[in-house]
């Protein structure tokens, strides 16, 4: 690969899937003693955006890392990697979850939907349309998670007020502060329903 061809999408990933040989982990006492041979691989079959994908995963790999690094689905974002920001929100069997706090190996046979699978063919999902219409983002990093969360919210119990939308969307942090327009986008969809 020439230097010019490298970008953030094809740069060799350094994570739990591939990084064990070069990045030894440390235990609670700070000792670095993990060998690459200790890595435990397991196969898992995920149905991702309607397609069955057979993967060999390190048992340590989160669903988030597997989606991004093994399946090249970079739409799902890694923000905090600790369940505190919601950027990695996806749907598992129709329910929104944080992909960073669950292991890929735990999802054998599960139906996974990411932002890439939300639209149908060339038509945007109504939530995507509403986000465009209401300018519900600035930098866009949290947006895939916000949209996946909003799409799930529309099928969940959530009160009628704007404050209820804020509460039901509270698992998604937006550092740009696009919240007023995010609430407006979600509200427009609820009014339509």
């Amino acid at each position, binding site marked *: 690969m020439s230097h010019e061809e490298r970008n953030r999408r094809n740069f060799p990933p350094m994570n*739990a899937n591939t990084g*064990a040989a070069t990045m030894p*982990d*440390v*235990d*609670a*006492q*700070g000792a670095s003693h*993990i060998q690459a041979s*200790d*890595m*435990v691989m*397991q196969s898992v079959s995920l149905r991702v955006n309607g397609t069955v994908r057979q993967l060999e995963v*390190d*048992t*340590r790999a*989160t669903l988030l890392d597997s989606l991004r690094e093994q399946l090249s689905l970079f739409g799902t974002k890694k923000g905090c*990697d*600790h*369940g505190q920001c*919601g950027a990695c*929100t996806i749907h598992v069997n129709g*329910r*929104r*979850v*944080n992909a960073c*706090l*669950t*292991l890929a*190996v*735990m999802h*054998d046979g599960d139906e996974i939907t990411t932002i890439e699978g939300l639209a149908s063919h060339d038509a945007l999902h109504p939530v995507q349309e509403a986000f465009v219409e209401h300018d519900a983002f600035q930098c866009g990093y949290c947006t895939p998670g916000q949209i996946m*969360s909003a799409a*799930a*919210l529309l099928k*969940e*119990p959530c009160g009628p007020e704007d404050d209820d939308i*804020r*509460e*039901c969307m*509270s*698992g*998604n942090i937006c550092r740009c502060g696009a919240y007023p327009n995010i609430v407006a986008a979600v509200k427009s969809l609820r009014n339509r329903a």
Partner: protein
Amino acid sequence: MIPFTYVKAKDTHDALQRVRDHNAVFVAGGTTLIDLMKLDVMTPSSLVDINRLPLDTIEHLPDGSVRIGAMVRNSDLAHDQTVATRFPVLSQALLSGGSPQLRNVATTGGNLMQRTRCYYFRDTAYACNKRQPGSGCAAIDGYNRIHAVLGGSDHCIATHPSDMAVALVALDAVVHIQGRDGERTVPAGEFHLLPGQTPHLETVVQPGELITYVTVPKSPFAAHSAYVKLRDRASYEFALASAAAALELEGHRIRAVRVVLGGVASKPWRSPEAEHVLNGATADEQTLQAAAAAAMKGATPHRHNAFKIELAKRAIVRALKNAIQSTEEKQS
């Protein structure tokens, strides 16, 4: 994260057999465990996945009690219509915890087993008797704004983070624990342990045991109950102080009452002192204030958290008022 083996348990018996390995742990929702494994705070060598266990139902039994499977997700329990009507404090507590995404995976059993949010517990660079017994407590002389003012010891002042558990204690819930030798039951109020000299021991669950159910009995005060959580932002944050209140009124007189605190103590903190003030008394402002003061009389503040004493009192008063209001709404 250190490497680990992974296996999916077929049923409860299978799960109990498979967790025999040294340093093997159950994984349910994983929202605490995987977080702490990434931080090298928890370092299991083997995970036994219990997500396929048939413990995911909410059963409303003929005697008026409810039997909640350990694998019931927090969101499903919170939105169960009967739970929301008959045990509002439980529904409110659950909905105040985490985010919708977290509640969709977090389980009833896992919520009881969740670990403290103490910064020093979560960072292996610091001393922590809970994480590494005998290493000391970095919080006692450190930044302890979020720490306990009740129930702490010279070895640990971490708080228990659960909202759900606070509500379960207020409802006299019972935790069912399965071991290889059979089942035992423990009242929710006795499920968590005080730190004392052994802060690494947090619950009565022994290695190799599994929480299977939580039962909540019918009671005259369960339906008149409320949860108030006070925190640094309006949502998606752990409590600085919270209160669960449940009461039975006869006119304006309190016949039976439960007051339990969260976010201020080493474990979900029932206050017999507050209940003593309230039992048999008239439910007026003065009585509620006196009960709140009684609850916090024995509190020991640390350098950065004295504010929690006043905050907890206000949580208690507001939770009691909400519970009283729900009683009046039901009577009218």
